[in-house]
């Protein structure tokens, strides 16, 4: 039988010793995930219980303000809330009451913990229970922490989805559950490909609306669509679901490997698989090849950001001909990114955590052709003459699956193409 599994390199990175660093981190906290989660879940509201800093972060991370009234806000703690928790709980109940009265369209409310609320030990779990009782059945109130002391950037989405898992209804149905907040266009493509292969039923977490929330049980098979859903995966397994282990669906090869793992689980034969994927695979290869002309032979250095770094390094090295110098991730769970580490040929430094000044020293010494980093570092590095790719764009752009493979490669090629286009501007910064 024809096999669509990718070819392993002579030696991968799964057993490469990981450079673990501890120091100043130049990353977002988990609250940032609200920026995309609030658009994905259309009847949910995210209420951060935090400080003015949290509100300012959400506003600044969004970059520009969102024109429509956003489905998120911050209940800003004030001096009197810090004085007594009883008072803080009362205040919270009042603010939630007001919010729900003003927004009757809200069916799910997430109380999102922050650094200050965690430090003063404001019990949002109990608050959520209390408020669910008060506002049931119209609104379900859940809680999770997006605090910087516990979560890094995309771990906020992980914490949010993990908080939903215990509330999912039981089901014994044999089903595939896609887990991770995908852009709508990507989600539709995934569902289309799986439907054409005859994989059914397929459900998604998170769902667009509370009413579409999937069930879960021992016959549920889970395919993660994002590599940062560590806690969610553990919670799903605890509910009896079985986790598929596959490379993540970035690039033609990653997407094929991911789909093939699902196909095998659901008994899809190789001919059917080929019939469904041949055309999109060819398109993906073609569009990646166009961007790869710019990327081939270039070196790349990843600062830790979203946990997408390892799968992306795999894609860029194997499908675009780049050389990875250092692949930094805020957190590495080998159970989940293991298949990607297996495919990533040995060579790069694999780093977990961050001490930003030390990492900058390594980066400057290596002079990579392209550096993937956060917005706080991008312009300063550009001013030093190094090409950069803002990491956050990778989370805010549809980059999964076949039809976006070329776009994904293009995101990395564009800074290099731009540098090649501009001339006579040296010394500008």
């Amino acid at each position, binding site marked *: 039988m024809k096999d669509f599994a990718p070819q392993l390199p002579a030696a991968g990175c799964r057993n490469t010793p990981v450079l673990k660093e501890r120091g*100043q981190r130049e990353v977002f906290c988990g*609250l940032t995930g609200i920026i995309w989660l609030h658009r994905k879940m259309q009847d949910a509201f995210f209420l951060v219980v935090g400080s003015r800093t949290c509100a300012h972060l959400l506003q600044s991370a969004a970059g520009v303000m969102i024109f429509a009234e956003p489905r998120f806000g911050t209940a800003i703690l004030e001096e009197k809330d810090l004085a007594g928790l009883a008072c803080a709980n009362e205040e919270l109940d009042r*603010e939630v009451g007001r919010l729900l009265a003003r927004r009757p369209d809200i069916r799910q409310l997430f109380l999102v913990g922050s650094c200050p609320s965690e430090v003063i030990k404001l019990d949002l779990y109990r608050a959520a229970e209390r408020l669910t009782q008060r506002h049931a059945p119209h609104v379900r109130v859940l809680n999770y922490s997006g605090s*910087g002391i516990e979560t890094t950037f995309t771990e906020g989405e992980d914490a949010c989805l993990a908080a939903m898992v215990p509330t999912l209804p039981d089901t014994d149905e044999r089903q595939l559950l896609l887990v991770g907040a995908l852009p709508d266009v990507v989600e539709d493509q995934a569902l289309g490909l799986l439907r054409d292969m005859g994989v059914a039923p397929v459900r998604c977490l998170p769902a667009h609306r509370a009413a579409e929330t999937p069930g879960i049980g021992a016959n549920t098979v889970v395919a993660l669509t994002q590599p940062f859903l560590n806690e969610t995966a553990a919670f799903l397994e605890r509910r009896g679901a079985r986790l598929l282990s596959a490379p993540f669906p970035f690039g033609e090869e990653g997407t094929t490997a991911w789909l093939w793992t699902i196909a095998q689980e659901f008994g899809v034969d190789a001919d059917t698989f080929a019939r469904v994927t041949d055309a999109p695979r060819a398109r993906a290869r073609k569009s990646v090849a166009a961007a790869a002309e710019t990327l081939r032979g270039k070196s790349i250095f990843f600062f830790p950001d979203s946990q997408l770094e390892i799968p992306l390094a795999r894609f860029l090295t194997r499908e675009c001909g780049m050389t990875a110098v250092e692949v930094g991730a805020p957190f590495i769970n080998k159970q989940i990114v293991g298949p990607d580490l297996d495919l990533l040929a040995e060579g790069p430094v694999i780093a977990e955590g961050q001490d930003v*000044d030390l990492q900058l020293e390594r980066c400057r010494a290596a002079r990579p052709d392209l550096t993937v980093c*956060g917005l706080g570092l991008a312009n300063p590095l550009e001013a030093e003459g190094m090409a950069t790719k803002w990491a956050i764009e990778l989370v805010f752009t549809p980059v999964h699956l076949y039809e976006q493979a070329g776009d994904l490669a293009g995101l990395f090629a564009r800074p290099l193409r731009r540098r090649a286009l501009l001339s006579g501007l040296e010394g500008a910064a």
Partner: protein
Amino acid sequence: MKLTVWTYEGPPHVGAMRVATGMRGLHYVLHAPQGDTYADLLFTMIERRNHRPPVSYTTFQARDLGADTANLFKTALQDAYDRFKPQALIVGSSCTAELIQDDPGGMSETMDLPVPVIPLELPSYQRKENFGTDETFFQIVKALARPMERTAHVSANLIGPTGLGFRHRDDIVEVTALLEEMGIGVNVVAPMGATPADITRMGAAHFNVLMYPEHAEAAARWAEKTLGQPYTKVVPIGVGATRDFIAEVAGLAGVPPKFDDSRLRMPWYSQSVDSTYLTGKRVFLFGDATHVKCMARMARDEMGFEVVGLGCYNREFARDIRALAKDYGVEALITDDYLEVEKAIEDLAPEMILGTQMERHIGKRLGIPCAVISAPVHVQDFPARYSPVMGWEGANVIFDTLVHPLVMGLEEHLLHMFREDFEFHDEAGASHHGGAAKLRSLDEVPVAEPEPAMAAADAAPAEGNIVWLSDAERELKKIPFFVRGKAKRNTEKFALEKGVTRISVETLYEAKAHYAR
């Protein structure tokens, strides 16, 4: 606890960052959890700074809380000193660190660093960003500046400009030129561009030019008391204010009020007949107190607008703004609640907003043009071109800024006359703004069937249970959108005065005659 959707100001430690990032040779060690580094991108992205803000974050995590966050701070402070070798350090806590009470100031004292370490107390749960800039700059000046011999030649310090300030970069150039024309030298500009060593020289100036009271008033007062330096009270935004500023500075410096306004075009532009259409445009102002104060004067006296409402988000200046509002015969709106500002604008239905980036969004939603005159800033507020708001060139820039969002001159007249032209109707927006013009189908009968949303808003029952009869309502729709709000309000006011409860076409035109000027 207060629910906030959008905020005008960040927390006070962001204010401290604005001071630190504006300066050179200073480093800020901030006791803060992971995630607070988001503030770096305000400077690297919005302001396009080509270097990282000089801030080290201790980045403590949950697991450190029970253990030793204090040691983490000490290590970060030592590392920051060793790596960056600053001339001075400022140390403090972000909102979360404030709760764990590690006392960065006290700890740094025990470390005997060979440079001044200035502790900051910025109460995150009471105060905001502007307090942070003002207090930080004050603490730095208090720690470093000393009375000293004055410069032989008369000189001034320019104080107040910071990182991420609204047009601060170019205002410095403009104010420096104003002083130079009077033969006054600039001793130190601070915080923007100054090193801690420069701060120690501040005492040599004869007086201080307080450019932005929001960011340097505490320092100015201290310098007046301790260094014997008087400071300017006039902020030179607008033609009249610039003239007053020159007179004030001349008085402080003991020099004749010399100036060269040969490049000042604003007065003529405002007097030229093309600007007639600006007369009596109803404007609403909102922003930081200083910019609102200056812009209100410009709006009324130099543009010929009617100020129908004004307010500020920084409570520290509430008293000034209330007094100002009284002068203008309007109610002051002192709030940092975006929804309240939106409501006030909706109720007043001005023809134009002079506001911040937030009001720009409100304007977009309500279909009211908005010019941005104050922080909070956006990447657009850091234009590549020279674009001050102070001094002569500042007045020129503001004229353009205020005119640009409006539908101009002849276009306005044509819209009055031929509102129903299918490709030139008022919802298409000003033609110089581009964008896709919304063509109407030729068959459409626009007046008879107004958009439901608009109808709902316009037909909303007015004060005192006044009802618009449908004929009058239709007539109201024939008035272009940029004056419709005014017509509606005037008519209702008129009806209320006359005890009329049902507004007819007659009432509409009687009101028009009543308010005719």
